[in-house]
């Protein structure tokens, strides 16, 4: 139903291993993805709970527009209290599970409790006949690709899956939640914040979602909705389409701007930038196959690359800018092919490539291994999969390995590794890292504008955080770069009621407010809204002059709402 009143939600009690279907509350009908996850966490989860305990709540919420014919709109948010940061976390992914859930009428899955026996594994089945918790021991310990292959032996090809790898099962704080792409590969990850461990703590190895041949969700104002989506698509395709060769194509720009971290962020440029440039990946398509594709049905951005090995066999997808930077340049590794291997290993084991890259770089920086040792780095990822003592420390992320190695240069905010985009040349982005409820997160509000005057940092950060929160609630991909104004138009035509752009901006603000409130309840204070000493004292760029030298007042200002201005409504989401 277009108005959302007949929508449903799934509640899963992993203490009793039961799954039930309820009506989706009307008060939440314009909430989806990140905003819905934040609301549920505020209403149903004690912020002081143990992240890996029965009291934590795991939320799987597709965006509001998922399952519709709006382009590139099927993303899903995974939410909960993060074992990595100790605060609220939302990580979102492409792939097809979000759309499939919405086609079945399910707006969200809320998982509570945990099984008495931590060695048991379960799955959640969702299809047209209902929802069930089923035995999952047959998949225990399997790496993500093997798990999905085995799942497809049991479930139809029309199904999509949400899975965790061994890292999630071992409750490691750097673990991810994988979603299958259009080809059924577990290559799309809700990676940040260790939500794979939360899923693992609940004994949930997989969720299968089979919408069969159900058609897309129908809007209330059909003719106008379809016409708007068609025009929107045409306009996008007539534009520059900056991501049509993948996010890895920004490597040269990032390197030029000193935001291509090298050797645990001791430099902002890598001498290997040319080898890590996404252009090399695109060049490989001619002789090896692979190419660009859409990670979810109905995507018009098609930024996802499919990377093949020298023999023409599938290796990984997608090899993104963040991964090439954090597992490549930041570890002193200069070959994109080595990074492709590392990316595949992370996807297999179920790890955030950013956190893993930061952890390995810290290990190297502390003398554990030479920078640039690609074979050694692959061995470290295998150690994580095997659960060795060193592997567990690495798998628990940057802070954990920093403590183990007694190493001071640990570039994190609120316990989460700083992503590739560096807060020293991009200071307004640093304000986002400091103030975002998510910790350092490139999807929270990226501002790639090194010329921005300091008096504009706070507003720029806040507006970018609002644009991205609105996007992550809608289900649209940040690479489609929808504006708040455009999201309001889609909502209006979908539900058949006037949803103003001001309302969408308010919902985005309420999402941030919910998340800040949760973190406050978890024990965070303004003192946590800061960047680590290595970002403040150590510079990058010519003569290492670029440092994060933004005042506490400017940082604090980003959390007080500015009056909305025209630019906010027209600001493109950017991740």
């Amino acid at each position: 139903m277009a108005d959302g009143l007949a929508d449903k939600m799934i509640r899963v009690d992993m203490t009793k291993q039961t799954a039930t279907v309820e009506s989706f509350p009307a008060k939440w009908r314009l909430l989806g993805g990140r905003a819905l996850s934040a609301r549920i966490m505020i209403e149903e989860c004690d912020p002081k709970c143990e992240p890996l305990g029965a009291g934590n709540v795991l939320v799987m919420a597709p965006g509001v527009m998922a399952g519709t014919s709006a382009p590139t709109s099927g993303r899903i948010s995974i939410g909960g209290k993060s074992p990595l940061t100790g605060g609220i976390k939302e990580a979102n992914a492409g792939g097809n599970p979000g759309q499939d859930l919405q086609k079945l009428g399910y707006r969200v899955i809320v998982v509570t409790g945990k099984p008495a026996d931590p060695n048991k594994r379960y799955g959640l089945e969702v299809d047209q006949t209902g929802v069930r918790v089923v035995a999952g021991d047959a998949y225990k310990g399997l790496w993500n690709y093997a798990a999905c292959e085995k799942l497809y032996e049991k479930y139809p090809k029309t199904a999509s899956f949400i899975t965790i790898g061994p890292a999630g099962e071992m409750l490691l704080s750097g673990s991810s939640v994988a979603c299958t792409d259009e080809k059924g590969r577990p290559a799309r990850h809700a990676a940040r914040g260790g939500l794979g461990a939360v899923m693992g703590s609940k004994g949930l190895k997989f969720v299968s979602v089979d919408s069969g041949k159900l058609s897309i969700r129908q809007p209330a104002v059909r003719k106008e909705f379809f016409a708007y989506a068609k025009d929107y698509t045409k306009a996008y395709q007539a534009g520059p389409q900056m991501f049509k060769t993948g996010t890895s194509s920004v490597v040269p720009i990032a390197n030029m701007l000193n935001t291509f971290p090298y050797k645990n962020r001791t430099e902002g440029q890598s001498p290997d930038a040319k080898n890590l440039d996404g252009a090399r990946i695109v060049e490989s398509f001619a002789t090896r196959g692979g190419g660009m594709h859409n990670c979810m049905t109905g995507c018009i951005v098609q930024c996802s690359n499919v990377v093949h090995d020298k023999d023409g066999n599938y290796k990984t997808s997608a090899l993104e800018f963040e991964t090439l930077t954090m597992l490549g340049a930041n570890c002193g590794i200069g070959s994109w092919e080595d990074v492709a291997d590392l990316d595949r290993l992370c996807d297999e084991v179920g790890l955030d490539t950013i956190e893993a890259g930061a952890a390995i770089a810290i290990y190297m920086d502390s003398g554990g291994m030479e920078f640039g040792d690609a074979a050694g780095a692959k061995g470290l990822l295998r150690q994580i999969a095997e659960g060795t003592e060193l592997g567990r420390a690495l798998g628990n992320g940057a802070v954990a390995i920093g403590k183990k190695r007694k190493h001071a240069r640990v570039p994190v905010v609120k316990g989460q590794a700083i992503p590739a985009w560096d807060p020293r040349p991009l200071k307004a982005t640093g304000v986002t890292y400091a103030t975002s409820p998510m910790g350092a997160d490139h999807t929270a509000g990226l501002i790639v504008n090194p010329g921005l005057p300091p008096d504009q940092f706070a507003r720029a950060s806040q507006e970018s955080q609002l644009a991205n929160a609105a996007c992550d609630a809608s289900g649209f991909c940040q690479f489609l770069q929808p504006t708040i104004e455009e999201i309001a138009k889609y909502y209006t035509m979908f539900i058949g009621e006037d949803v103003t752009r001001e309302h969408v901006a308010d919902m985005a603000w309420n999402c941030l407010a919910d998340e800040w409130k949760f973190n406050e309840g978890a024990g965070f204070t303004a003192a946590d809204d800061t960047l680590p000493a290595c970002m403040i004292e150590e510079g990058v760029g010519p003569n290492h002059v670029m440092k994060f030298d933004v005042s506490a007042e400017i940082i604090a200002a980003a959390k007080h709402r500015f009056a909305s201005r025209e630019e906010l409504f027209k600001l493109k989401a950017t991740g």
Partner: protein
Amino acid sequence: MPIVVIPPPYRGPTQGLERIEVAGRTVRDCIDAVNALYPGFGPQVLDANGQVHRFVKLFRNGDQLAGDVLATAIAAGDQLEVIAAIAGG
């Protein structure tokens, strides 16, 4: 005079300036003119061979330029917009 619109990633050399009026009859003239005023801008748009970086797109009055982009004529009052990729997950 033509106006060159600078994308956010390239506003470091222009000290934050977004729109710069310059004298020039072609795209290359305009880029060279901005670089003369704000050294460091040019290499962000043009590679070592003097060609447009592949990750940069140029638009004149809203229309994307193709072919011999740098030789394209620019008239007084035209808006030359430089677009650069600025995101990456």
